[in-house]
């Protein structure tokens, strides 16, 4: 025991590239999936299929990044359907086909998003409500706004937005660039700025964060605002990608958004977030859809595969596999109490 104090310990190092378990799992699964696709259903990796898949993967990735920020603070955001739908409705209804009115509409959508984020943040961060309830209520209010603006009828998007969100640059869908930009911003801000690092610390343990003097409430509240801004971006893109978006387009994104966050390795209990893995998980789920579609199997199988992926994904993190193996290899010797 004494020698420990005498010996000069080696200086601790830090590797530049830290590869998370989530990144490896999701990354390898995605590569495998593409390989299987190429072998079993080549049409699912044809140029047209991939070009068709990428925009939806991009939207899911952006929504997933938003959900990840909320999950990092130990919350969950059920207001995604309303938020995405509202952004869609605002940017398609307000301009009514007039390109010059697109920018004001986008600004209006962002204003709504900030409002919704502040409402969620105030209720969860400040009033201490459970995030499930607070965001459930906000979701209903957002749908109220959706119907108030649209009256429930779809309207086609402006040609400008369709060009921006749905167009191609160098043969790649523009939406992919938006998703990559969102990923880059989230990653840099969360991992490389003071505020971002504090944000992760608050999520990992609010009590410790408070004891070190961090402003816990602010970080917890703002998570919802950042998330809403991302949902808004996703909604705007979706409005451009689909020609005549419906008022309930956002409904389809709630569960996949939670699924990609979980698959990416972010714990539902909060803490560190894995933005890159989350985005890859979005690609994985979207390609899975594509694969199943090209095989011609029913929608049901696709859903079941999603569920299985989710279960395996969560179990990888939650189950103590080492202990599990041990239990089957040898029974721990019973400590007897000699009488």
């Amino acid at each position, binding site marked *: 025991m004494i020698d420990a104090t005498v010996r000069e310990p080696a200086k601790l190092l830090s590797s530049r590239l830290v590869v998370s378990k989530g990144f490896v799992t999701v990354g390898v699964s995605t590569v495998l999936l593409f390989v299987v696709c190429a072998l079993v259903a080549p049409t699912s990796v044809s140029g047209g299929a991939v070009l068709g898949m990428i925009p939806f993967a991009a939207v899911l990735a952006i929504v997933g990044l938003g959900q990840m920020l909320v999950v990092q603070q130990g919350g969950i955001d059920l207001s995604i359907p309303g938020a995405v739908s509202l952004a869609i409705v605002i940017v398609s209804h307000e301009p009514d086909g007039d390109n010059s009115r697109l920018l004001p509409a986008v600004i209006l959508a962002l204003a709504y998003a900030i409002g919704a984020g502040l409402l969620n943040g105030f*209720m969860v961060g400040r009033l201490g409500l459970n995030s499930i309830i607070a965001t459930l209520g906000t979701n209903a209010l957002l749908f109220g706004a959706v119907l108030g603006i649209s009256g429930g009828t779809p309207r086609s998007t402006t040609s400008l937005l369709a060009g921006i969100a749905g167009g191609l640059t160098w043969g790649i869908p523009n939406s992919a660039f938006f998703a990559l930009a969102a990923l880059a911003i989230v990653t840099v801000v969360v991992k490389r700025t003071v505020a971002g690092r504090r944000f992760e610390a608050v999520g990992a343990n609010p009590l410790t964060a408070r004891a070190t003097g961090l402003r816990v409430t602010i970080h917890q509240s703002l998570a919802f605002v950042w998330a809403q801004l991302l949902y808004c971006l996703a909604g705007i893109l979706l409005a451009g990608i689909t020609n005549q978006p419906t008022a309930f387009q956002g409904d389809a994104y709630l569960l996949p958004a939670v699924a990609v966050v979980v698959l990416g390795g972010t714990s539902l209990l909060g803490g560190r977030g894995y933005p890159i893995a989350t985005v890859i998980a979005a690609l994985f789920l979207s390609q899975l859809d594509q694969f199943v579609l090209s095989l011609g199997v029913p929608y049901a199988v696709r859903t079941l595969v999603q569920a299985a992926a989710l279960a395996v994904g969560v179990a990888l993190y939650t189950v103590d596999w080492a202990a599990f193996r041990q239990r089957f290899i040898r029974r721990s010797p019973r400590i007897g*109490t000699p009488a």
Partner: protein
Amino acid sequence: MNNQDTVDVTTPDKVEPAAPATLVMSNISKLYSGVAALSDVSVEILPGEVHAILGENGAGKSTLMNVASGTAQPDGGSITFEGTPIGVLTPAIAVQLGIAIVHQHPAVLPDMTVLENLQVALPAEVLSSGTSLEATATALLADAGLSVHLQDRVELLSVAQKHLLEIAKALALKPKLLILDEPTAPLGQASVDLLFERVRRSVSNGTAVVYITHRLAEVRELADKVTVLRDGRVRGSARVVDITDDELLAMIVGRKLESTFPPKHISSPDDEANFSINGLSGSGFANISISARPGEIIGIAGVVGNGQSELMRALAGLDYFTGTVAIAGTTLNSRQLLQEAAYMPADRHREGLLMSLSVRENAAVSALAKFKRGPLLSRKRELGTVAETLGSLAVKAASMDSVVSSLSGGNQQKVVLARALLSEPLLVVADEPTQGVDVGARAEIYRILREVSASGIPVVVASSDAKELEGLCDQVIVMSRGHALEVLQGAAISEERMIHAAVRSTTRSVSVVADAEASKHSGLRRFLQGDYAPAVLLVGVIALLGSFLFSQNARYLSDFNIYSVLTLVTALGFIALGQTISLLIGGIDLSVGPLAGFLVVIGSFFINDDKSVLMIVLGVVLMIVVAAVVGVVNGSLIRFARFTPIAATLTVYIALQGFSFLLRSSPDGYINSTVTGIIGSQLGPVPVAFIVLVAATLVTEYCLKKRRWGWRLRATGSNEESARRNGININRTVVLAYVATSLFAFVGAVMLMAQIGVGDPAQGVGYTLTSITAVVLGGTSLLGGRGTFIGTLLGSILLVQVLNATSFLGLSQMWQYLFQGLLILVAAIVYSVARRNNKRRKTSFALR
């Protein structure tokens, strides 16, 4: 240091007992991760005697009692109870034998009432023995000197009252062996007298009592025999009358010193004080003053739980205080202290570390602003500074990227220290800095604290280890029950002086709450704090809305409208009743909606017009079986695969949707019209199914409040650890709760089946969120432990009523959503604010 043999001034008592000893523990040893907590301990507890166990913090008293009550299994030695050798002692066997233990931290269930706490803990026959349940329970409480109202929520009791409740639970079992672990710590004088009186009465009836304490005065007052433990060994045992205080003290002190301390600071008399606190008072401590010169370390001594931690938290800026704290002549308030003081909490895992993050992130978190270059963090600067600090503290880890939870206790504490140093604090506040730290690392932590102090930063160290304070500190405040008993300086700082002061103290708690006083809550307030206030509120809202709608349109109360509204309520109502069960245990079930849809799809294969009665019955049975299996899967994923409830039930949610579409890709399979007719039959304007729903609500409500089944659910949701200590099987309760949730979803599915009349794979999903909404409207807490089925039923009614109202008033769908959203948010905010007010009332109560 002292050799054991030289200190032993007395020999164990040799008087032969008339009856066999109640409990004999011979040569007990117990290791915790290789460290001996007990070695070769032998104690004999006789009936009709109070046997005091004395010793310092960490002497092994609590471990010995955990062995005696079956909570911990010894690594060696034997246990004999009333002459019969006991092979393996478990908590269950201990209860059967008649061993009752009162823990230092009461195992009470905060969300349940006093009466329910008794009912959960005690066998039914104990409470049913007297004339009425209430009378028996009140008598049991009075027996322990507690006179609170039986219907008060335990959450609202003071610490002392919770303690008395715990004692009442133990006494009610009429144990043969009663173990009291520091029972008087939170109690006022009157309660202590009452407790002693009660203990003497039990003893005269032949009960054997083990009394763990730090205080000589209590030993003298109550005990017949005393055994002193030190370093996990018996230092001596004697009859109380045969031994003097000084002899006892000599046995308690003189622990072997394992670490070396850095030399103490030598201050010159003309140094100015750079740190002073004056008249500091707060929750749990009062009127503490001291001042220190640069280079001096201040120690806070005393038996654990005498206000030291509260004082430290106040100094760290985490808790409110009055009085002044000045550093280098500047007075700092709480907010400034929170920013400027570096706090090292006693509970590292809970409050000191970000357990899931890396060593680097933990160390850097308080100094991030210094690593900035432009808007971003400079990796180089961060790594350089952090590595240097970690190196100077000799932190041993695989790399800076190692998760901090993988480090040993000593290295974890050094990471906390590194964070403290990197933040360049004005003050270092260290609560139990060497707890759970190995010997080598201890010496280093002492050295670092000394260096910090020498650099001019004031250091305050609280420790339950008097020897440590003796070696480390230049001034020591000895605290007892929140007061500063003495301030020791220089040569006067010795373990002996500290322990003398602490064990001889006869002060009483600062927060001398009226523990035994009857609660003054009025009936009205009790009702408002109770579970049924939301229900009454909902009835009011439903009636108001209903009469408004009726005034607008008389057809609102037409038979047709009543029938259609109530029919819609039935499907939602049953599913929401199930959801209530999941929320009561502190979980959530997202899969109820898809499950209901899936069950309808299954039914659509069997329950058709052309099928025989047998096939229809088979279909129903299959639906029940599938529902039960889904419940088992949900519960097992949560309890055994450690999924969070959301992750588990979300997975099942998606899977069930898949199964629905697998069986039917589009709506098909028309439901048997006779069956639909039966389910939809009505009594006047009211659907029979609705009457069944109301009956089911009342029955489940009754079970929830009056049956063990319901108590178990609420106990599990209220506080899992306490529930376990009350003998509840948590795994079984949770899995069965999810099964019950699924079975209610089955009944809801039957209603749904009759309403949609066809197997539609897309139906039902929406019921997940609607059911949660209904439950929350009904006042059930998402944190678990409290809620009512009646509230859920009313919540379902209100929800359907609001949807119906919008169409009745000719409002657009927009209003449907807006109303629904506002309803949820208003309800959630109102309930949570009401609950917070209750809590605040409780805290202010404790502060008095």
